[in-house]
């Protein structure tokens, strides 16, 4: 095995232990007497030390030795895990992570090591900065790779059989082999996607860590809970939502949760509550971040938006509560009284939203002034293959993600009503707006005659239904998504796919569509 391979193994395994240390230390802060936590941290530090010494990384060995020592002292009752020591340990762990990830990093360990006994040293030199460096590799079980290799082997055999069958002009045999190949490819696709999945709790520890650091910094008391760690998510989706989630959590601590005095005044428990829940819903993963803080003052958001010229006074008056809250996603809006270095609500929310949308997700914000805020992130299980419905609009094919479709209906033209000049239909006891795709895409087919009824796909976007008027739909199909480069239609289409007949088809993004039609 080459040194490079050793290094990869070392980095990935050592970083796993860093994660274990961080998670365990966070738990230990809550239960400082739990012996098994102390043992675990000691053992992980020891393991990293052993690996680092084999690799010849002396500084890493030294730092691990110091971590081992302090936990040995705590175990033996010589030292106590004070808040100061915990903070220093977190700084050490960040440092350790950087040293493991970056072979060439040169660091003077001395001030770090001295900071343990000398609190002043921390303020002078060392600022806690949780590293956002996540290794770009994933660990794959050998057995999973074997499965992939097996399927590829079977595909090769199929190919040879197919070649033979074609040479023999045996149509029936070819057709059957094609069916088998189809199944094999579906299998390969599924298994490959499985390999890309990583457990969401891989990033969970960074969340606890951020909430801990920010709340200590601001002197707030917060109980942070995370649920749903058993769920897996595509690695690239996970990567692109990590920063947005960190931002949301910092916002919760900074602007959401009130100071202890303010909470007591408002008859709330002095300890603020933040929960992060991950659940699966159909083809989507929902990540829900809820706090019991002061919530968003919709009136203030409107005021600010008018002030910044984002909306007019008239628009502000017409706006309902939910629309006003959605304004916090507008670029350049900040309602925080002072901009802190921790976060500024509004400063980054637009970035958060665009990050989430870039992987095909959406963000929903619910908030009641005085009673906390709930942010709901909806994400696709994986981004590159989706189930889509192929629809026809003026003889052109488009793909609509199944995950957004509620149902398809045929409506007689007589049941189309007009409200404020917009066409609407009745659907399940409510009135929903119609979006005529041929008009929107400006591809009206002059030849198309007026049928007595129209075909409508009812879609859901941010808990509202819309009816898309189409000519007809063909079938459900798995489609491989290819991202389009930025172009003049990017406000409507981000992705395309290639259909079985070899033609390129645009993928409709319901949230973009709705944003464009219903401002």
């Amino acid at each position: 095995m080459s040194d490079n391979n050793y290094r990869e193994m070392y980095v990935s395994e050592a970083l796993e232990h860093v994660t274990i240390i961080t998670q365990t230390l966070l738990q230990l802060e809550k239960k400082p007497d739990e012996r098994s936590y102390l043992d675990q941290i000691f053992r992980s530090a020891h393991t990293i030390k052993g690996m680092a010494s084999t690799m010849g990384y002396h500084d890493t060995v030294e730092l691990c030795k110091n971590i081992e020592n302090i936990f040995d002292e705590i175990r033996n009752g010589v030292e106590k895990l004070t808040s100061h020591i915990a903070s220093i340990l977190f700084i050490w762990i960040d440092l350790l992570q950087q040293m493991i990830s970056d072979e060439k990093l040169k660091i003077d360990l001395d001030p770090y090591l001295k900071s343990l006994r000398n609190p002043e040293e921390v303020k002078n030199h060392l600022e806690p900065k949780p590293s956002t460096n996540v290794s770009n590799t994933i660990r794959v079980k050998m057995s999973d790779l074997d499965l992939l290799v097996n399927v590829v082997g079977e595909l090769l055999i199929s190919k040879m059989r197919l070649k033979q069958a074609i040479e023999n002009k045996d149509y029936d045999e070819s057709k059957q082999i094609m069916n088998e190949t189809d199944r094999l490819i579906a299998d390969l696709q599924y298994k490959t996607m499985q390999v890309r999945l990583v457990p969401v709790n891989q990033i969970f520890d960074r969340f606890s860590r951020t909430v801990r650091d920010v709340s200590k910094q601001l002197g707030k008391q917060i109980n942070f809970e995370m649920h749903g760690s058993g769920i897996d998510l595509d690695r690239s989706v996970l990567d692109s939502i990590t920063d947005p989630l960190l931002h949301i959590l910092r916002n919760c601590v900074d602007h959401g949760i009130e100071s202890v005095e303010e909470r007591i005044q408002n008859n709330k428990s002095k300890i603020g509550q933040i929960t992060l829940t991950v659940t699966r819903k159909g083809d989507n993963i929902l990540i829900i971040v809820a706090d019991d803080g002061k919530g968003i003052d919709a009136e203030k958001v409107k005021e600010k938006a008018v002030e910044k010229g984002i909306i007019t006074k008239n628009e502000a008056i017409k706006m309902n509560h939910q629309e006003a809250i959605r304004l916090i996603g507008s670029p350049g809006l900040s309602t925080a009284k002072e901009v802190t270095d921790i976060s500024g609500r509004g400063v980054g929310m637009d970035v958060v939203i665009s990050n989430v949308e870039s992987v095909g997700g959406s963000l929903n914000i619910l908030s009641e002034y005085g009673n906390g805020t709930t942010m709901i992130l909806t994400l696709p299980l994986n981004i590159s293959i989706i189930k889509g419905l192929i629809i026809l609009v003026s003889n052109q094919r488009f793909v609509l993600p199944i995950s957004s479709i509620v149902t398809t209906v045929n409506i007689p033209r007589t049941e189309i009503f007009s409200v404020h000049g917009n066409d609407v239909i009745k659907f399940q006891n409510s009135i929903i707006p119609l979006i005529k795709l041929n008009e929107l895409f400006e591809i009206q087919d002059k030849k198309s005659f007026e049928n007595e009824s129209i075909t409508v796909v009812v879609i859901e976007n941010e808990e509202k239904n819309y009816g898309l008027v189409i000519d007809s739909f063909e079938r459900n199909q798995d489609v491989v998504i290819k991202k389009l480069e930025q172009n003049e239609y990017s406000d409507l289409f981000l992705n395309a796919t290639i259909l079985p007949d070899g033609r390129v088809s645009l993928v409709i993004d319901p949230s973009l569509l709705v944003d464009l039609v219903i401002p």
Partner: protein
Amino acid sequence: MKNYQGFQKLYGVKMSDGVKILIVDDASFMRTVLKDILKSNGLCNDTIEAADGVEAVRQYIQHKPDLVTMDVNMPKADGLQALKGIMKVNANARVIMVTSVEQKHIVQDAMKLGARDYIIKPFDRSNVGLILNKALRTK
């Protein structure tokens, strides 16, 4: 295979294909490093691995290896507990402890419990070869 022949010449030992070694360490990185050393020294091509003390005893019973390298700090059951377990199964088991420099005191306890010898992390390739080979030659 060059190393293998060199080793034979150097130590006058013929590595039998039948030598089976159980490598016990909670870090897969360390297990791989040790496995590679054993291979390149020509000591053993047939290795079994265990990641904790409980698995170590289980693997020992199942595979009856000729030799065990035993890490000390491990989850579930540590190296000393696993050593005790293995010695109960076979009082003549050849167990070599794997420790870091500052854990030498543990080695003394391990020797009392029946461990044959110890190797120190980070590994010195030829030293590992010598010690394991010596242990394999004794009954």
